[in-house]
């Protein structure tokens, strides 16, 4: 397979590898619930081939789980002079560059699984809904530092809407 879409001279900052735990945890829970739910018809009706649905679902989730560490490694961000660059995705790669001055607000979110391993998720919001920069898997301390840095940078490079 050919190389992936990427910037030429990029030094990406990765996120915490512990984020894989969060992702795997989430996928396991989702997979278990969905497989169980789709398995109900098989048990109720006794029709054998209906079991194909939960089984294939389970396989998809397992593949997903197997790929999670690579996917987590593919997430990266970079603070350049004037903009924040964010990258994610293995199959569907997405690279976004947002000038700091475009910041409307920064969110820090912590889900229950995130909290269990001490991670946070940082969301950079601009006036465009499609910007969608959400950096997951940052250690709490780093997330807060990054937020403060971003706010300071946005202050110094303030721009109109």
């Amino acid at each position: 397979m050919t190389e992936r879409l990427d910037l030429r001279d990029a030094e990406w900052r990765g996120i915490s590898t512990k984020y894989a735990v969060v992702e795997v945890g989430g996928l396991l829970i989702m997979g278990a619930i969905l497989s169980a739910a789709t398995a109900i018809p098989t048990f109720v009706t006794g029709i054998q081939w209906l079991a194909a649905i939960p089984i294939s679902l389970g396989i998809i989730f397992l593949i997903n789980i197997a790929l999670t560490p690579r996917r987590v490694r593919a997430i990266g961000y970079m603070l350049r002079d004037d903009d924040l660059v964010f990258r994610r995705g293995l199959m569907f790669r997405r690279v976004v560059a947002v000038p700091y001055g475009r910041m409307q607000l920064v969110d820090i979110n912590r889900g229950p699984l995130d909290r269990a391993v001490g991670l946070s998720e940082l969301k950079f919001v601009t006036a465009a809904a499609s910007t969608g920069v959400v950096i997951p898997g940052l250690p709490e301390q780093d997330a807060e530092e990054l937020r403060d840095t971003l706010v300071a940078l946005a202050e110094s490079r303030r721009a109109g809407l």
Partner: protein
Amino acid sequence: MTDPHEHESVPIPEPRPEPAREPEPERELEQQLDAEQLVAPTLAEQARLLADGEWHRLHPATPFLRGGIAFLAIIGVIIVNARDIFLEMIFGGDNGFEPFDRLARAGFLVPIVLIVLLVLLLSVAGFYFSWRMHTFRITDELVEVRSGILFRTNRRGRLDRIQGINISRPIFARLFGAARLEVNVAGQDANVELAYLGSRGADDLRRAILQLASGTRAAESAEAQAPGQEHGGIVERRVSELLAPELDPNAAPPESIVRIRLPRLIGSLVFSEATVMAILVAVGIFVAITVTGRYFWLLVFLPGVLGFVGYLFSRLTRSLRYSIASTEDGIRIGYGLLSTTNETLPPGRIHAVEVSQPLMWRPAGWWEIKINTASQASSSTDTAAKTTLLPVGDLDDVHRVLQLILPSLADEQSRELLEAGLSASAHDDAYVTSPKRARALRWFSWRRNGYALISDAVALRKGAIWRSLVLVPQARMQSVSMHEGPLLRRMGLAELRVHTVAGPISATIGAMDRGDVVDFFDEVGRAAALSAGADTSHRWRSENAMKAHDAQNARAAEEVPVAAEDPVAADDPEVIL
């Protein structure tokens, strides 16, 4: 009545005779002004008085215009009926209204009449108090509206975040000489509405607000007011207002830069995609009827027919008497025959522009221009009206409008690039286009599909059948992204998206060479950060803003990883979103 204020309004372009002393509808606004101000000021002064930071009330006819007309009709019906009944009670006659007779015999008539009267009185009082409680003020910083009796609402909009000011005059309001002024700020349904104001006062008030918002000082803005005086009686004035061109002649160059003639307008509607759909549906109905022999198919499609007629009608009325002109406070777009609307978009409020050509307009060479702005209306008809900048126009019109909305594209080179962006045949030009291997994804348009930087805007050229050119000014771009999926990766392609505020235009260009996309991504990203810093259009006239931003850029250039404790930045009052 002597008038000390009249002599203060200095710059009258053409000295005119004293205006006649008939009561003006705008005068009614003065009832709320302080007693010492109750001398008739000129109209422009009045706008200044309205924008003086004190609380004012709206046009006294407001309750009737905001749905009170139905109420008046109900009162009228009740009175007419009551009169008939009274006449019958006095002169006899037995063809009276049966329920009333029965009520009268049962002795309930009096309490019921009393209750009805009470309800009427309460409603009138309600209307009156809601008008009393509905006040607005305009200060140097913000426009604020308070309304409601039991449930008070208070809405403030900051002047430096104005995305547009809209004056609309529904037909009823026009008869009363009233207008609705809407100050749009960024956001979904984020508008401060002043409904209703005196019609002439609204134009002047808009100018005053724009002047406050533009960053000129209040004193200068007072001087810049050009009073527009009118003579004639109230009827004459109403008539002249109804017939007046949609552009306020004091504030704008009288002629619009684009004129849509009726044949072109009708042609554009006849050859629209909606018409094709309608014809297909009609053929479908015809076939269905001939095959089944039943006419109930007509009923099935009736709602569709109604919808289509409504759509055509709204497009037609939206485009009638269309005008677009440049004023010093931005672009002014006006349209409408009976109910008129006219909107001012200050500079730098247009986030994306799309010039597109429906298939059937190609023989005529017509184009349509749509825009994205930061303020959005929730209802779809409003959105359509707001986002269509030029309903139909030829290539010259398109260039004139583009120069107006993106002045940086006015030079010769940009014009060539724009023409290349709109033409069909230009293939080996400055646009970076899709490689040949992208043919599988862009069957007809791979030679056209491309991007370029025109002056300070990103241009994305798309489509061979439905041609369009999307322009995003770098100063308005929010972010830029590139994407690839498994298929694109295998073909060595990628997709580029430029993010702007939400609107009908999405600036996306797919199936481009990956290397090109990565280069362009870098280039656009850098350019966006630079022009975002240099942009001062939120205070488009203020020198301060310019200086502040220049200084800011210089600072940013000096110290790259800036610390939070930058004292100048923290104190800078010229902050915007």
